[in-house]
């Protein structure tokens, strides 16, 4: 049983043998969409993507076409296109599959995006640990150059587009777009204040479009089939298909491509093999990567996987990383682990985040080890208040939201830890 049309855009090729090779990609219609785009006016390409309504798949959900339209047209500076492949949000591992199984899909999406904003140079910023994935990507780029798809005369149309891979070196904060740009410039990946936005002052002080891998990989099909076709997939405000990385306590963890709007229960039960021990054994789900608040089982029963429904339920779609926890999980322990992560990854630039993530982590350690006091729970909320909305980038919010969400949904477990000095479960 599958949800709606079972249309595959991002994973349409990944089951083919040698799906990463140019010949296979072209043998299945690859690089036809970019040729179509080259026959259109750049603004028409942007309009088509706008009509499709694809929203940023990295976590922020900003409409891609709109982002592209912000690039100034009569501006003498060079324009840049950057792909964010710094996939680091815990629970998320979807971009990796696009890169290693269908790198040409990404390259084609980037070629189209670059053409639409008149960018002649693009970079794929890939997390440093994805060493083998970067090799696959480089191999695909080399193939594309050799075939005249990239370079100074793309497809013989007199269009220039150079593309290179740039490896990160282990900093979660570089997934934030301006941190990434700093890093690409050879600096510490400390995010910039916005505005100015990258569309005006981005890489090397020039107008820059920066999109996630999955967003860019959606573009060839939008151009090939039209924005209206794409907008017909999914639900209102959440068009298209999405990759969900389902991990944790399910019987068949994996990356699944489905239309947005799928009921979470269906995603877990029909696609991911069901919750370990059965649906009734479900405790909670983090629906969009570890920076998002956890949802309780009763919300999971009815919520649908789209931007609006998840926001209404008290969490977010984020990167589409669905982290499933069964009843054996101690929420306090889980949050403690996440708070260590944010403490480790805070870039140290903003005091509320640098100090606050340390505080949260320390208090969580205390609670988890049974040394917490009754005031600690409210102290945690107080620290969250002092981080959220008070930092340059969203890492601070990301550190606070899961803590706040967990206290809201599972306060009794925190209280149990304080009173009994141990987990409520197990």
């Amino acid at each position, binding site marked *: 049983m599958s949800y709606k049309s079972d249309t595959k855009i991002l994973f349409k090729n990944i089951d083919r043998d040698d799906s990463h090779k140019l010949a296979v990609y072209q043998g299945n219609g690859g690089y036809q969409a970019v040729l179509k785009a080259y026959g259109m006016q750049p603004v028409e390409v942007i309009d088509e993507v706008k009509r499709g309504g694809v929203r940023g798949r990295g976590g922020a959900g900003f409409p891609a076409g709109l982002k592209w339209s912000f690039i100034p047209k009569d501006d003498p500076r060079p324009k840049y296109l950057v792909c964010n492949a710094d996939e680091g949000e815990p629970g998320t591992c979807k971009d990796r599959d696009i890169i290693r199984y269908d790198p040409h899909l990404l390259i084609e999406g980037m070629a189209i995006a670059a053409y639409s904003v008149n960018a002649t140079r693009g970079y794929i910023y890939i997390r440093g640990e994805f060493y083998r994935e970067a090799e696959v990507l480089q191999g695909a780029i080399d193939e594309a150059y050799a075939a005249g798809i990239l370079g100074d005369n793309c497809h013989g149309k007199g269009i220039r587009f150079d593309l290179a891979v740039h490896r990160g070196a282990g900093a979660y904060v570089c997934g934030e777009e301006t941190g990434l740009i700093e890093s690409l410039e*050879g600096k510490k990946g400390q995010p910039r204040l916005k505005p100015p936005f990258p569309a005006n002052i981005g890489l090397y002080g020039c107008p820059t479009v920066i999109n996630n891998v999955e967003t860019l990989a959606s573009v060839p099909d939008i151009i090939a089939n039209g924005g209206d076709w794409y907008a017909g997939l999914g639900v209102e405000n959440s068009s298209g298909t999405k990759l969900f990385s389902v991990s944790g306590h399910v019987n068949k963890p994996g990356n699944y491509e489905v239309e947005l709007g799928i009921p979470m229960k269906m995603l877990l039960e029909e696609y991911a093999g069901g919750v370990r021990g059965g649906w009734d054994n479900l405790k909670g789900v983090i629906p969009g990567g570890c920076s998002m608040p956890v949802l309780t089982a009763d919300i999971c029963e009815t919520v649908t996987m789209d931007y609006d429904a998840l926001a209404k339920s008290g969490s977010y779609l984020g990167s589409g990383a669905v982290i499933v926890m069964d009843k054996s999980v101690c929420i306090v322990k889980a949050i403690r682990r996440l708070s260590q992560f944010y403490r480790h990854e805070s870039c140290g630039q903003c005091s509320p985040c640098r100090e606050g993530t340390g505080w949260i982590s320390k208090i969580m350690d205390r609670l988890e080890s049974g040394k917490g006091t009754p005031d600690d729970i409210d102290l945690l909320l107080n620290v969250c208040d002092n981080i959220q909305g008070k930092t340059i980038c969203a890492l601070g919010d990301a550190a606070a939201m899961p803590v706040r969400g967990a206290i809201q949904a599972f306060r009794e477990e925190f209280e149990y830890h304080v009173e009994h000095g141990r987990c409520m479960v197990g």
Partner: protein
Amino acid sequence: MRQIQKDPNAGTFQFSETALGEIEKIYARYPAAQRRSALMPILHLAQREFGGWLSQEALDFVAEFTGIAQIRVYEVATFYTMYNLEPVGKYHVQVCTNISCWLCDSDGVMASLNGKLKQEFGTTSDDGRFTLVEVECLGACVNAPMMQINDDYYENLTPEKVSDIIDRLP
């Protein structure tokens, strides 16, 4: 806090011919006026060339080689955790213990490595063969638990598989 350290045994540094060729290619990726963008790739390369870690002497060499101020090189090297600021073993074993791996028993993976190698996390074995570390999410969450050994991922691990993988390392 990640600190830079001196290497009392540091000799003189020199990139190999292959590395120099690679560096040419790296520079070509960026606009001529933006050579600083090459710093991270060159540091990756330097780490491979100079024994798997970057001592202060190695960083100073990179600074001189690239014409980038030492302090800028230090900043970058200390900011990014993949630049090793102390020697690591022949096999750099990094176990993810973040949420998805933790839910899928990364504790078991760690225990298996502890038992197998008789070594604590955060240490390098006396024979220089293994460095064991716990790391943050490596982005293979649907195949949890997982670990990385040097450039390669090992996924869908069980304690038995871990033991097997270690046995098969050359």
